[in-house]
């Protein structure tokens, strides 16, 4: 029996490469085609440089779709589920985001596996709780 495999979407934000499970992604789009109010930027993944691509993520609990702005979508890689591992315990205990709790070793380098719905939810929550200027 073959080992279970996950399909990962590889994408780039700034100089850093991240992965997410393909099942979290509705489609890939162009940022220019999306209304600015639906774009998700300034997440904990860091600033974007080119803002060329958007990863459309399904809203949770019936919420509207959201488009995460990224610099590049690099493609899809298949990895064995056994290659996906949790963050080291100390890192998991101190990190201030629930969107990154796992990683996968690709070419012997730890690549962070991003939970896109959680990332979007955290960004929206930060936006709505940001204090208004005096």
């Amino acid at each position, binding site marked *: 029996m073959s080992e279970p495999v996950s399909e990962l979407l590889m994408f780039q934000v700034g100089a*850093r490469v991240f992965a997410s499970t393909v099942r979290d992604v509705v489609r890939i789009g162009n940022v220019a085609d999306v209304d600015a109010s639906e774009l998700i930027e300034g*997440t*904990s*993944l*860091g600033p974007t440089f080119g803002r060329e691509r958007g990863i459309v993520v399904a809203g949770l609990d019936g919420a509207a779709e959201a488009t995460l702005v990224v610099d590049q979508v690099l493609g899809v890689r298949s990895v064995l589920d056994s290659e996906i*591992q949790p*963050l*080291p*315990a*100390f*890192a*998991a*205990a*101190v*990190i*201030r*985001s*629930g*969107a*990154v709790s796992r*990683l996968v*070793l690709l070419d*012997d*380098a*730890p*690549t*962070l596996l991003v939970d896109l719905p959680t990332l979007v939810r*955290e960004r929206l929550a930060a936006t709505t709780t940001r204090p208004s200027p005096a």
Partner: protein
Amino acid sequence: MSQGRPSIEPLPAGAGRSGQDAWFFCLRILGGRYAFEAALVTEVVRLGPLTRLPAAPSFLPGVFTHRGEVLPVLDIGQMVGQGAIVIRASTRAAVVHCGPWKVAVISDGLEGLVVIPRRNLEASPAESSGMAEFLSGVARDKLGTIAVLDLPRLVEAARSRAVPYGSSAP
């Protein structure tokens, strides 16, 4: 100890626990000499390319891979607010176990094992800020003064001072 070696020598049985001598692992951080209980150190490794973590506190500059294991890096200088340790290609880290946590402690340089006669250990100064908050004592050897850190307490403080996802700030 040579910095070119991948791991430290095993400690003699009972080292650091009893007897007239105390065994410490010594490193240099931001111009000072610091040490902690040698038995906490499992090996010394060359720091691989760092993967930085989003939303990580400043004392956690990233994670790296060592023999297929992903290790978090602890910058003690950042933890105590005394500045970041510059990470270079030559940077090595001491891999330590502190209770449930396994971290790679970076420094400006590793001296390795030092043996201090217990009679040469003095109480730490009564300060409660910066690195002094985590000192358990002060020692002296032929190279000068060594500040002895209570590393498990420092690591636990780092964990508790960070505000993990889902928690409220204190």
